[in-house]
């Protein structure tokens, strides 16, 4: 069954549910609560599960949404439909402010930062006079359409679940797009994404705001559902619970948010009501809840949704090649006679350690240059200086006569320098095709809104077709739909080359491309690189396999302890006494 039909079926079941005879009204309340929690969790799926930004603060955004409409409807008598955009706007703006700080937090500081501002906002709600302090605000009008006032749990149900379904679809669309791939790449660190032009800070901020707005929407619905607000549901506990819902459902899966909130809300309800009220122990419920939480995590650390989805007959994605128009190639500049890349006295110091010591070399158009030397000699650091990952302490680097030093990686790849990494940086749970398509990032244009509304299909088809073309070029078309993490390390390096080719580079930087390849695979790689050179590309590579390097490179630069000790044609390098002493050893 295709995903589209599964969703339609789910929508139908949810639509028919309230009209089934004999459904107790209490169930509707429960379903409303599930929907409200699912909206917040959906944001967390994108933010935490996909983007890798753990937030304990989502309850605060619910609070912003809820309090905005509460104040505007009760103090100013505005209609709830007018306050909806206001609630989302206030939430969105506050999300920008908090997000600008939060997305800059690194590692564990990020979740902890969200706890900190989450608590702060909660205490603010409970202390501010105009928000009613601890008592909150009551007398909020219900949502109404014409004369239909949605006073009951059964009537607001349709509003809540429409919101859940529409948000889920928009989220799925967003994930399956150019921007979605960029977001999915964030969790694995930002270097690779930035190397292909992704503005990672902006992408993070985008998901942060997106998740906040979903939480704000949930808050707005909540305020009109209960028709009263107070600080308690927006505190630390709630923030933790939302995250818990996302993790239980399976952080990273859109439908995990819905499933997770179903599980958690129903579990809480069962514990609160039947079994334990009979025992007369009001607090046992929280003990059992905590224990169940731990047990659930031990039984399914990846969440429940992947386990459920395994039983559902989802149709596998078609294995046919993506088709689309060719992307426009980089405009040809006249490079004849110019130096493609010129590194002059590049220096990088980390504290007192000089990693790259005034290194200079040049790369001409259509030239293959190799950078060799022992590990720790500064080869990868040199790559990082050229690609803008690291700022040079001093020195000049220019491309076709224009300085590129100090430019961010996103700008350097735009100018035509694409790279691979020594430690492969692919997203293991994305297909080879999707991984390679990240390389086309700068050649597409669709933004978040267009992606969510599926207006990006032509753009998207072009990008995927280009990715498929480059995969074929490196000879991995058989693995196009495999998850990148399932490939052997040597093949993953080749996938990285395809990804770099997608950026339509004029200079390709390859960090140990042949490591992990067999003899015949190395020969194929060498043939590919010669072909690329023949088509006009220059290549700078770091490689330890001397046989490979000596056969392929026209010019070799040898580094030792950050310093260039030799430069020349392979035959000169082989017999250079300094190189033999520092690197090659007696008989090379």
């Amino acid at each position, binding site marked *: 069954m295709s995903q589209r039909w599964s969703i339609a079926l789910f929508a139908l079941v949810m639509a028919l549910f309230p009209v089934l005879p004999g459904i107790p009204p209490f169930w509707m309340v429960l379903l409303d609560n599930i929907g409200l929690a699912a909206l917040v969790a959906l944001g967390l799926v994108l933010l935490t599960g996909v983007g890798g930004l753990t937030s304990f603060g989502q309850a605060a955004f619910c609070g912003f949404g809820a309090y905005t409409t509460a104040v505007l409807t009760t103090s100013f008598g505005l209609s709830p439909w007018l306050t909806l955009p206001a609630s989302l706007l206030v939430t969105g703006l506050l999300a920008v402010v908090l997000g600008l700080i939060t997305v*800059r*937090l690194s590692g*564990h500081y990020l979740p902890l930062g969200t706890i900190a501002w989450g608590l702060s906002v909660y205490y603010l709600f409970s202390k501010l006079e105009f928000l009613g302090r601890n008592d909150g605000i009551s007398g909020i009008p219900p949502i109404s359409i014409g004369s239909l006032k949605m006073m009951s749990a059964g009537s607001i149900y349709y509003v809540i679940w429409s919101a859940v379904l529409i948000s889920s679809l928009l989220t799925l669309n967003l994930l399956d797009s150019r921007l979605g791939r960029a977001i999915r790449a964030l969790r694995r660190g930002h270097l690779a994404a930035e190397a292909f032009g992704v503005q990672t800070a902006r992408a993070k901020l985008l998901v942060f705001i997106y998740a906040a707005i979903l939480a704000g929407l949930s808050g707005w619905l909540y305020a009109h559902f209960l028709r009263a607000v107070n600080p308690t549901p927006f505190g630390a506990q709630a923030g933790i619970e939302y995250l818990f819902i996302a*993790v239980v459902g399976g952080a990273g899966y859109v439908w995990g948010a819905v499933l997770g909130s179903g599980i958690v809300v129903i579990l809480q309800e069962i514990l609160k009501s039947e079994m334990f009220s009979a025992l007369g122990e009001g607090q046992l419920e929280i003990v059992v809840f905590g224990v169940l939480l731990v047990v659930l995590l031990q039984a399914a650390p990846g969440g429940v949704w992947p386990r459920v989805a395994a039983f559902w007959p989802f149709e596998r994605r078609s294995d046919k090649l993506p088709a689309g128009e060719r992307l426009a190639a980089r405009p040809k500049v006249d490079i004849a006679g110019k130096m493609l890349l010129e590194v002059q006295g590049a220096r990088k110091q980390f504290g007192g350690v000089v990693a790259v010591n005034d290194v200079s070399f040049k790369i001409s158009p259509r030239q293959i240059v190799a950078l060799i030397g022992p590990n720790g000699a500064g080869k990868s650091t040199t790559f990082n200086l050229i690609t803008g990952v690291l700022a040079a302490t001093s020195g000049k680097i220019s491309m076709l006569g224009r300085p590129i030093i100090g430019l961010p990686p996103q700008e350097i790849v735009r100018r035509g320098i694409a790279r691979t990494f020594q430690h492969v940086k692919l997203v293991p749970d994305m297909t080879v095709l999707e991984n390679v398509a990240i390389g086309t990032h700068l050649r597409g244009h669709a933004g978040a809104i267009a992606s969510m509304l599926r207006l990006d299909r032509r753009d998207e088809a072009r990008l995927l077709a280009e990715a498929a073309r480059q995969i074929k070029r490196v000879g991995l078309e058989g693995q196009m739909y495999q998850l990148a993490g399932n490939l052997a390390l040597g093949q993953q390096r080749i996938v990285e080359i395809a990804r770099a080719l997608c950026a339509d580079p004029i200079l390709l930087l390859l960090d140990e491309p042949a490591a992990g390849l067999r003899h015949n695979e190395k020969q194929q790689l060498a043939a590919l690189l010669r072909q690329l050179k023949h088509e006009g590309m220059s290549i700078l590579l770091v490689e330890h396999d001397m046989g490979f390097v000596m056969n392929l490179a026209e010019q070799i630069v040898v580094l030792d302890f950050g310093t260039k000790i030799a430069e020349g044609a392979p035959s000169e390098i082989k017999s250079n006494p300094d190189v033999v002493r520092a690197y090659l050893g007696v008989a090379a």
Partner: protein
Amino acid sequence: MNTTILLLLAQDGVTNGAIYALLGFGLVLVFAVTRVILIPQGEFITFGALTYAALASGKLPGTAELACALGFVAFCVEMFSIRHQFTTGRLVRATALYILAPALALVLAQFACRGTSSATINIALSLMIVGPIGLYLYRIAYQPIAHASVLVLLIASVGVHLALQGLALLFFGAEGMRAPTITDVAASIGPLRVTGQTLAVYIVAASLIVALWLFFGHTVYGKALRATAVNRIGARLVGIRTVLSGQIAFMLAAGIGAISGILIVPMTTIYYDSGFLIGLKGFIAAIVGGLASYPLTAAAAVAVGIVEAFSSFYASNFKEVIVFALIVPVLLARSLSAPIMEEEKD
């Protein structure tokens, strides 16, 4: 501003800060060794405080029974997990650790609360009860998912926190408890009155810092715990049992939490849920210390204590808002100053 008030607030802040520092150490220790962010640290404070208070008032603390119950669960979990690798040695060890140790503590506690036992005995007994609870929790809740991501471990921590808080209510009731001060000695320095209790706080905090520094810097076992934190696989490859490291870290953290609780309970009434908020402040200190540095954690803890003391005096309504909001810029500064390195995300 009045100098006396200033000094009093500063003293108050430093005393609280010393407690937060202790808690922060526990958190740093546990995180370093196990990658668990120990939200239940707050409950160890509560347990320590209430166990000590109960013993001091001649009542049998519920935690003694709780330790036995958790020990039994841990024993069952252990037996289940070694069912394919069963050896007599393992059975003996598990029985001693999970069944006999808490049973012994229970028996001793029963003796202690019958007669009037000295403060020292009560403190030792409280540690003997609460410390193993930490170990059992690690065995039951965390050890089976030791390789999960920090996020999953964090959520598990939340579950453990909820369960323990509920258990605390069950075992101690909603009534708050307070214990007699350890000594009644007091001295005045200018306008400041230094009580024996505050002095004890400073001494314990300072000596624990020194003890932790000696342990981690100069003993093979301390180094082994650090090694576990730096590289789990590397540690296992030289024969360090990382599982054991985790258990020890949890036991130490629970012990540190209990000591903090024991130090606080003569100064303020502790309820079943008081620990959480106190723990959070220690948490902040640990965060500022990057969950890695003990001296930074100590400094940050004192700063948190002082900020709290002053904001409760000048803007008591917004005390929490201020304390928690001030963390964010600190985190930002730490994030920006951290070297740009591509961390291998799990």
